[in-house]
C-alpha cells in the first residue's frame, strides 16, 4: 500500500508537470526595428512603441501567446530571423519577391505608398528630368531604395542611410534636396517640429513591382504553423475592432485597403 502511494504521488507529480507545460503560454519572439516612427520607435526610457509594436502585442494576445519583442537594426533584420534570434518580424516589411526567396510572409496587415518630401516652396519637378542633379536621401535596403534606384537611379544622386533619422538630419542640414520614403513615416516627420518646413511633393508610388503586395509579417519558410496562427490573428483583430482602435491612434485614414 505504501509502495502504491509513492507510485501514485510520482504519477501525480508527473501529471502536474505535464499539465503546467501544456497550460504555460508559448513564447513568440518578435523582431522589431525601433527606429521607424510612427510604426516603431524607442522612447526616451528605452521602451518600444508605435503601430507595429501595438499590432504585435494585439496579435500575441489574439494568439494567446507570450510576446517577446527584440530590437534589431534594419540591415540585419532578415539574417537575424534566419539565425533564429527571433521567430517573426513585425517591422513594416513590404512583401517583395526578392524577400520571399528568403522568408515567408503572413497576409498583409497594412499597405503603404512611398512619396517624396522637400523644403516648402522648393520648385522641384518630380520627373526624370526634374530630378537631374538633385540629391535624394533614402534608407538603405528599403523598397523605397529599390524603387528610386530602379526608376530614377541613373539621373540622380542617391544617398543611402542606415536609419531614417540620419536621412532627416541631412535634409535639415541641407545636404540633400529630397527624402524619399514611406508616406506614413514622412507624414509623421512633417507633422513634427523638426519637419515643419517640409512638404509632400509629387505623386504616391505603389508599383507592385517594387512595393509588393503590402506589408506583412516575415517568418522562416519552415514555420507554416506559426504563419497560419498569425493569419488567423490578423483576421481576428480586424473583425473584433482591435485593429481599427490601434490604427486610429496613429492615422486618421484607412491604411488596410480592400479586404
Amino acid at each position: 500500500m505504501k509502495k502504491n502511494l509513492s507510485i501514485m504521488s510520482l504519477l501525480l507529480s508527473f501529471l502536474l508537470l505535464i499539465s503546467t507545460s501544456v497550460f504555460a503560454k508559448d513564447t513568440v519572439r518578435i523582431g522589431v526595428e525601433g527606429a521607424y516612427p510612427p510604426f516603431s520607435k524607442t522612447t526616451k526610457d528605452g521602451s518600444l512603441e508605435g503601430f507595429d509594436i501595438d499590432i504585435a502585442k494585439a496579435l500575441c494576445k489574439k494568439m494567446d501567446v507570450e510576446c517577446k519583442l527584440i530590437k534589431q537594426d534594419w540591415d540585419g533584420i532578415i539574417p537575424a530571423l534566419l539565425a533564429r534570434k527571433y521567430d517573426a518580424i513585425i517591422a513594416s516589411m513590404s512583401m517583395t519577391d526578392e524577400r520571399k526567396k528568403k522568408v515567408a510572409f503572413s497576409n498583409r496587415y497594412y499597405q503603404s505608398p512611398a512619396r517624396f518630401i522637400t523644403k516648402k516652396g522648393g520648385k522641384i519637378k518630380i520627373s526624370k528630368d526634374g530630378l537631374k542633379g538633385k540629391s535624394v536621401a533614402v534608407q538603405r535596403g528599403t523598397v523605397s531604395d529599390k524603387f528610386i534606384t530602379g526608376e530614377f537611379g541613373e539621373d540622380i544622386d542617391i544617398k543611402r542611410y542606415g536609419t531614417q533619422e540620419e536621412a532627416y538630419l541631412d535634409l535639415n542640414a541641407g545636404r540633400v534636396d529630397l527624402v524619399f520614403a514611406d508616406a506614413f513615416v514622412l507624414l509623421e516627420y512633417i507633422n513634427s517640429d523638426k519637419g515643419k518646413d517640409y512638404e509632400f511633393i509629387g505623386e504616391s508610388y505603389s508599383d507592385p513591382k517594387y512595393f509588393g503586395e503590402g506589408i506583412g509579417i516575415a517568418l522562416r519558410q519552415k514555420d507554416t504553423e506559426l504563419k497560419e496562427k498569425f493569419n488567423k490573428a490578423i483576421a481576428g483583430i480586424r473583425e473584433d475592432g482591435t485593429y481599427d482602435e490601434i490604427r486610429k491612434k496613429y492615422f486618421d485614414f484607412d491604411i488596410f485597403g480592400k479586404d
Partner: protein
Amino acid sequence: MDFSIIIDNLPLLFKGLGLTLQLLAISLVIGFILSIPLSIMAASINPWLRIPVKTFIYIFRGTPLLIQIFIIYYGFSQFDWLRESIFWVIFKQAYWCAVIAFSLNTAAYTAEIFRGAILQTQKGEIEAAEACGMSRFDQYRHIILPSALRRSIPMYGNEVIFMLHATVLAGVITLVDLFGAAKIINSRHYAPFESFISAGLFYLVITFTIVFIFKLAENHFLKHLKR
C-alpha cells in the same frame, strides 16, 4: 552560397575600393604632415607647446573614431552659423568630413609614435650634433628626425593598416567605400556572407600589399640596425 551576386556587383565593389584607397591615401598624407610638427611639440620640454598637443592627442586617442565622425558629420551640421559660413562647402560633403576625421585621428596616433622615437634618440648622436655646432633646427632636420622616422617605420606600418580598417567608418556617413558597397549588395540580395567575405578579401589584399611595402622600406631604411 551564390557568388554570382558578387560577380554581378564587381563594378560597385571596385568603385568602393577606389574610394577606400583614396580616403586612406589622402588621410595618411595629411595625417603624416600634421604629425611631424605635433610630435616635435609633444616631445618639447616647453609646456606651452607640449600641453595643447598632448591634449589633442589625448582626445583623439581617447574617443572612438566613429564618435569623432558622427560629431564632425552630423554634429557640426546642426549649427546654423556653420551652415552659413564658408566652411560649409567642406562640411557639407561627407567625403571631406571623413577626410578630416581620419586625418586628425591618424595624426594623433602617428604623432605619439614619432614622439616616442624622438625621445629615444641616442644621447650621443645629439651631443655629437651639438659639438659640431648645429642649431636646434639643424639637429632636428639632419639628426633627430631622420633617425626617429626610420626607427618608427615598423610601428607606422601598423598604424597604416589600422587606418585602412578604420576607413570602413566612411560607410556610416553615406559614402560608398568598399564596406559601403558590400552593405548595399547585402541589402539588395540579403547575402551577408557573400558580400562581406568579398569585401574582406579586398581588405586582405590591400593589407598584404601594405605589409609588403613596409617590409621593403624596413629593408632599405633599417639596414644599419639589422643583426
